[in-house]
């Protein structure tokens, strides 16, 4: 790993100003669990790391009934996994956080870093001059593509690796972004970008912008939620496919729904058609088969990953069955 200057800005203004002034050379540094790996592999070689951890006001979880939930970008994944009021009010976040990586990584990794982590594609991380690194082609198209995306890929077939993003998307979260000049707030859905719009970046952040806060609206009465994650092995791993389902119910009748998928697209994937079709469905009575067929309907799997479509549909059915019992 190359040497770099480690900057300890005194406040947000100083941090964002440095980042804006040296766009190619400087990067924000939170827990480092993702960034250090990229630097060690020579994928990124920043000359300046701007430490965010000592900035005040970006830590912690704040929730008051009747208000939005606020999560500071520097909140660690462990803090989310262990917070009691989240477990009661926002169980998807607890369930997702508990399945992120291993205890050691959750103790250091932050929520902001989790949303902004780079793809795990082995061509991107490896010694390949791929499209996302400024090269000419996406090697996954004709290469080893078992873990790549099945939808939204053209022209780069990564999957977004974040588990937290999938849960937050199902909760319709918003992201607060700060630059030296101003602060803006966007829906999480609009925070991530598809390769067809920008294949060099996974999100809309511009140089000098950092994520400061994530907000989640309070759940309506009668809300049921479940996060399911399939990985290749029992202990820690990234998702092959994950699913977050939020249902608002009146008795067993679904009145509103949001279903998000991880591991299938270059962004956390909102299943809009299925989310719109679920209202009217009665849990425990109607058969989920017909709706399951709509999940990833427009998928175009690569040679080795058609299994992800079946997996996503089965997770959808499993979630409906489990939520019918709750």
């Amino acid at each position, binding site marked *: 790993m190359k040497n770099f200057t*480690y900057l300890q800005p005194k406040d947000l203004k100083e941090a964002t100003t440095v980042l804006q002034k040296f766009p190619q050379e400087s990067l924000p540094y939170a827990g*480092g669990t993702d960034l250090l790996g990229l630097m060690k592999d020579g994928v990124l070689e920043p000359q300046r790391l701007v430490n965010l951890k000592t900035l005040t006001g970006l830590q912690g979880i704040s929730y008051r009934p009747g208000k939005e939930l606020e999560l500071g970008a520097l909140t660690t994944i*462990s803090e989310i996994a262990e917070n009691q009021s989240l477990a009661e009010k926002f169980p998807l976040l607890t369930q997702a956080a508990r399945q992120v990586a*291993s205890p*050691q*990584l959750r*103790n*250091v990794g932050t929520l902001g870093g989790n949303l902004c982590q780079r793809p795990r594609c082995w061509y991107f991380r490896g010694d390949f001059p791929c499209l996302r690194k400024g090269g000419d082609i996406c090697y996954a198209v004709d290469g080893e593509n078992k873990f790549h995306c099945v939808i939204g890929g053209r022209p780069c077939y990564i999957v977004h690796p974040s588990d937290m993003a999938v849960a937050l998307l199902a909760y319709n979260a918003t992201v607060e972004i700060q630059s030296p000049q101003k602060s803006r707030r966007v829906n999480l859905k609009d925070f991530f970008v598809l390769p067809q719009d920008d294949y060099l970046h996974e999100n809309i952040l511009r140089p000098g912008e950092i994520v400061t806060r994530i907000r989640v609206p309070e759940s309506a009465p009668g809300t049921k939620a479940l996060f399911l994650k399939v990985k290749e092995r029992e202990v820690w791993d990234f998702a092959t496919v994950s699913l977050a389902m939020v249902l608002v119910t009146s008795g067993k009748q679904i009145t509103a729904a949001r279903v998000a998928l991880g591991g299938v697209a270059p962004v956390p994937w909102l299943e809009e058609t299925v989310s719109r079709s679920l209202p009217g469905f009665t849990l425990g009575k109607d058969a989920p088969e017909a709706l399951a067929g709509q999940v990833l309907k427009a998928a175009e799997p690569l040679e080795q990953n058609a299994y992800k479509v079946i997996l996503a549909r089965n997770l959808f059915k499993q979630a409906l069955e489990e939520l019918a019992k709750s």
Partner: protein
Amino acid sequence: MKEISIHFTVNGKKVSLNVPSRKRLLDVLREDLGLTGTKEGCDVGECGACTVVMNGRAVHSCLVLAAQADGAEILTVEGLAQNGELYPLQKNFLEYGAVQCGFCIPGMLMSSYALIQENPHPGEEEIKEAIAGNLCRCTGYKQIIQAVEATVKR
């Protein structure tokens, strides 16, 4: 500024050092402080051999910059034994045959130690979860879990 100065506590002793910015906590422990009990396995957060306890929490010292440990309290496997006597976890690792080649053991001990500090009477599932980030190629984990269980028995 490619050098940074750090002040932290390692196994109860205050330490101040100037090190190149790229050094990780693992490098400083092993190279600058001679604490080679902490092992380097995969280097990328996958094996847990480098686990130390930082401010009461298990962390991978291979994925923590030395700069991040500034002001922190670090405990390594060398800090477990007191006055020449092994810590109860260590005694039970020996008692239950939880050690074969031994490479994973410092990390296993530190992950288990962090668990017990937070939760003095964990069940089997909690023990398994606490060492989920620690890879052992030899023992099959069973004896390791038994050793931790024996330590936390009421």
